[in-house]
């Protein structure tokens, strides 16, 4: 029978040993596991993810495990918000998570992340404010 733990290698070369059940939330891993018939002692490389992000992702998977499938969206967004705040609270974290969720095919995290970002966007009243907030270059010049 396949082992309980999987080895994930992030792009900085570090190996992370994680529970199989936990990372099944990552679609990309599900796909890989489907293809692998034998014992998965091999290391699964994740070249687009770094350790910090992976740690956050695993924290997300943890908190998702304790909720049932139909956890309300707002609840998930709050969990995500707290997660980000705890680990620095800047934009970079959120954007990293969104990109990683897209790459790893984690729909729940992707939805929560994009909705969170959408909520932030909605809180600003003008295009100029948005540009200031997200350092978007003003192309009129």
């Amino acid at each position, binding site marked *: 029978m396949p082992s309980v733990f999987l080895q994930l290698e992030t792009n900085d070369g570090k190996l992370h040993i994680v529970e199989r059940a936990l990372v099944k939330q990552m679609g990309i891993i599900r796909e890989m596991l489907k293809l692998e018939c034998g014992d998965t002692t091999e290391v699964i490389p994740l070249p687009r993810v770094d350790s910090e992000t992976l740690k956050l992702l695993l924290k997300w998977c943890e908190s998702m495990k304790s909720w049932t499938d139909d956890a309300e969206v707002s609840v998930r967004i709050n969990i995500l918000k707290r997660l980000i705040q705890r680990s620095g*609270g*800047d*934009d*970079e974290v*959120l*954007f990293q998570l*969104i*990109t990683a969720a*897209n790459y790893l095919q984690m729909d729940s995290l*992707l939805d929560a992340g*994009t*909705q969170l*970002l*959408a*909520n*932030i*966007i*909605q*809180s*600003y*009243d*003008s*295009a*100029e*404010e*948005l*540009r*200031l*907030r*997200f*350092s*978007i*270059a*003003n*192309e*009129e*010049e």
Partner: protein
Amino acid sequence: MSARKHRGSENMENLCPVTRKRSTSKNGTAAASGALVSATKSSNYEHPSSPSALTYEALEEMGIGMLDSEESSSSALSAIALAISASATSDDNSSEMTPMSTNVPPMAHQMQQQQRRSLNSTADTTLDSSVSGNTTVVEDAQQRLLRQSAEKLQALAQAKRTALGSEGGSSNSNSPAKRFRNPLSAVTCNNQSESQSPLNFQPSTSRLAQVRQANKAAAASSPLPPTRRLGSAAESFFVFRTPSMSAHINSGINYFDRLSDEILLGIFKWLPKKTLLRMATVSKRFNRCSRDETLWTRLDLGLRTFRPGALEQIMRRGVQVLRLAQTTVQEPAFTPSAAAFKSRLQYLDLSMAAISKSSLRTLFSQCRQLKKVSLESTELDDDICAEMAKNKSLEAVNMTMASGLTANSVRLMMESLTNLSSLNISWTDLSADAVTALVTNISPNVIRLNIAGCRRVLFDSHVATLQRRCPQLLELDLSDCNSLTPEVIPAIMKFKMLEYLSVSRCYLIPATRFIELKGMPSLTYLDIFGMLSDAAMEVLEKQMPKMGINKFIHSSVSRPTVGTRRTSIWGLRTRD
């Protein structure tokens, strides 16, 4: 026309509440739309290529509420009226500069006066305390201070104005100039200030930095309380972040560049349409992504008034489900090149819309994929019907109370619309020829038909022909076809699958004949309003215990919205 209306009002109880309300408030809406027309600004401010016009000022202009009520959450779409194409040009910015520059002098002047007053007071004190020999020095200093302060004031005034302008709806001023200002023109405003006071401003995109510069300069040269007060006042113009947001001070990196367009669309799909329009003004990439068709598939623009050209813009957005119930479309709704554009529109609700015949024709000339359309109470002509008939995949058509149908157009439509399954052509003032054309050419696929209100033109023979043509009819509404005689009953009996029948107010048919309808195994509902007294009704009900008699006041054949639900048409959401 008046005859038709009269007829319509006679049967108010037969109409759904929407129609009823519309007939009574038609005058009210006409007045309102008139006012709107007069209130619309000259075309100077309608810069087709400026995305700026997609602002709240424009919406307020058009008298559209900004609150997120059920219907107005996509009200921002009317702002599309002001944007005809994507690219913003600097021409627009410069042409919109003039109204703004007129605002500069008054404000600067005011502040200058304040400043001068306070400066004079301090100068007075210095003068008092000094010998006359020092007056020239003080005056020079005062003049220098005045000059510098004036420059700073102008810069601050402009900064304040741009801050107010960019705060959009939060501004209390209702001046027309402000309303149509391109939020991007705030940048050109900065350019202007740069040329006027090069000492104080360095080219910097962050306006906060610029104000800090101004404050620093002001504080360094004149440590007078008034200036500092003005300086801090200027800073307060930029407090648009709540304390909780201030944690997210921008770090200078545009993280959106790390996201693919796919993810960006994933973010945009959560945004309400109002915000989505604003996104288009943020950057070129946002503009491109916010225009993606997948974000604009469903729109509810009921009860709005469209500016000239607005409808064309909306069609170009790739909308598939469009509700335009009771909207007013101002002329000209389309540009000459519009007819060439093929839209993906599939579900169109134009119930009680005020739209000219030529615009309607152009609209239909763009549509070839329509599946369901409602033209309730609209004005039609042969060309419009011809264009509509080219939508071969049409399944449901609602033309109740429409005007302008001729035998030709009816024939053309029936011949062409072979996939039609549900048709409501009641109260359309059809001629006898038109009725003949209808029943002779109607598609056999039709299972729901409402031809109520064909007074004096619909005869028993028509029903017989209809039965031969559509033997599988499930629902048939013949109410108010008062030329029908008892001879029609045998013809009706031949509909072996008929579940619903209405012969309300067909006075020539005596009540005694209805009992024969018991012989129809499939018939479940029978509407015979206005035919029997209460006592007679009781008797009939006893004789036909399984029949649902007079259960449906309103016909729902092909109706997009039944009852009071307004958020969907034909069961399709109009909001996504």
